[in-house]
């Protein structure tokens, strides 16, 4: 489980860490959107430059980002191959049966590859520098307008933060149950696919039972501490939108303008 970099927070301190999580969250999605505006080598190079600059000022070692790519590697390769071999072209450099390789295909495959790198790096940057609780706070803040249509925003946010808080506890619980079942002779790594899936049933059922009992305990504890229905609650954690967040927004606008300009550049 330690291998998964995507979605993990890495404690640290730099400008990127100090940005308002709401801003970071929205900018990440905005950037993923504008990645699709790029259409030629210069514009892709420009975006790559921007992402590497962001990685550089985050002071997070680049190796974390490379590791973040690893679980996605097969998906990336598969997509790139698909683009390279199946792009229709009138001047193939090489072809065999239904496969053909052309200059256009290779270029598009290269673009797709860069797109993957951009999107994975920028979202890894968000999760590495933002704590889960900050992300859940920003979701609450972004969804706030939905209160108008009676959407229970603060309840959903509390649910999210409790869910995040209990992930490590449930992982511990799973390990405990697995050990208990192993002690009784269950072998999780043996047999065919069906047998392996079946051997997870004796983990899942106790896990469900214990998570319900944890939920019950937690509900009692929350009620005893005066949690009613989320009405009239004040907030201890607040988010600060500061000057540097404004600057980041300006930078993003500038990038969009440059990108639009580079699009028509031949």
């Amino acid at each position: 489980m330690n291998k998964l970099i995507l979605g993990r927070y890495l404690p640290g301190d730099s400008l990127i860490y100090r940005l308002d999580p709401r801003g970071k969250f929205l900018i990440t999605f905005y950037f993923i959107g504008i990645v699709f505006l790029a259409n030629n080598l210069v514009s892709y190079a420009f975006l790559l430059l921007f992402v590497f600059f962001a990685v550089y000022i985050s002071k997070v070692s680049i190796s974390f980002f490379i590791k973040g790519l690893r679980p996605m590697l097969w998906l990336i390769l598969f997509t790139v191959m698909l683009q390279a071999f199946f792009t229709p072209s009138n001047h193939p450099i090489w072809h065999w049966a239904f496969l053909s390789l052309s200059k256009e295909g290779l270029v598009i495959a290269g673009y797709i590859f860069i797109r993957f790198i951009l999107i994975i790096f920028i979202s890894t940057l968000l999760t590495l520098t933002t704590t889960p609780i900050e992300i859940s706070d920003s979701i609450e803040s972004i969804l706030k307008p939905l209160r108008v249509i009676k959407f229970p925003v603060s309840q959903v946010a509390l649910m999210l933060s409790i869910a995040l808080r209990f992930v490590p506890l449930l992982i511990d619980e799973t390990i405990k149950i697995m050990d208990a079942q192993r002690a009784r002779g269950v072998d999780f790594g043996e047999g065919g696919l069906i047998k392996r899936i079946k051997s997870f049933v004796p983990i899942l059922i106790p896990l469900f039972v214990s998570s319900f009992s944890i939920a019950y305990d937690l509900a009692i504890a929350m009620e005893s501490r005066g949690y009613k229905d989320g009405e009239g609650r004040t907030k201890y954690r607040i988010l600060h939108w500061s000057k540097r967040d404004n600057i980041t927004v300006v930078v993003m606008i500038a990038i969009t303008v440059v990108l639009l300009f580079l699009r028509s550049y031949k």
Partner: protein
Amino acid sequence: MKNIISMKNVTYTYPEAETHATDDISLDIQENEWVSIVGRNGSGKTTLTKLIDGLIDCDSGDIFIDGVKIDEDNIWDARKNIGIVFQNPDHQFVGATVEDDVAFGLENQGVQREDMIKRVDHALQMVDMQDYKKRDPQSLSGGQKQRVAIAGVLAIEPKIIIMDESTSMLDPDGRRTVLDLIQNLRKKQSLTVLSITHDIEETQLSDRIIVLKSGKIVKDSDPKGIYDLGPKLIDYGLEEPFTSLVADGLRDELGQEGYVNEEGLIDQLCKLNSKM
């Protein structure tokens, strides 16, 4: 002295249970008292505390907290006077970090943020956890988590703290720090403590012990009165105090009948030593 908790003929039966969980219990607890509630598993201890906090409604009888009879309308006000520390430290940690968890009860009461920051800091100082403010629960030991839970309770400034086997999942060190903390708090401020426990040492710290059996109060006295029961304590889910076991073993030499506390025992052993 004023009664902070008063129960009159309280009966509660769990749905589909054949016997009463609490059977016609009447009980008065005075302000600033430390009361231990003991008894075997299933004797109704936890039910009793849930009734006091209004987490379950009694079938018959009345409960008064700080002179006010609790009902559905004022239970949320009554809860502001009561803080409960539960058994499992992990199952009551709501916040993502220590400070968030301490603030949870204050957020529920709608306390203003500036006030909240002061009260969270003060509560963490009282339990000596201010250095851990930003930490997440995974990085804390069981004893530290229980101290955070106590801080969360203290932040709402309750008159009553209920400890529902709060020390039973801790190692001896963690248990010691939690009990020392409660003792020190009671020196500084008025605080009624209601503690459910199986730990004989913990009961020695209290002013009064109530023994429950099958939902009924079978004994209610100061610790000495309970320890004098000797081997019969096992029936009530308690072990004999260590001092009683020593005194019992040396009965011929010491001639001690009934319970003796630690100081008394040391005294007698010294006398015995000088005689030899």
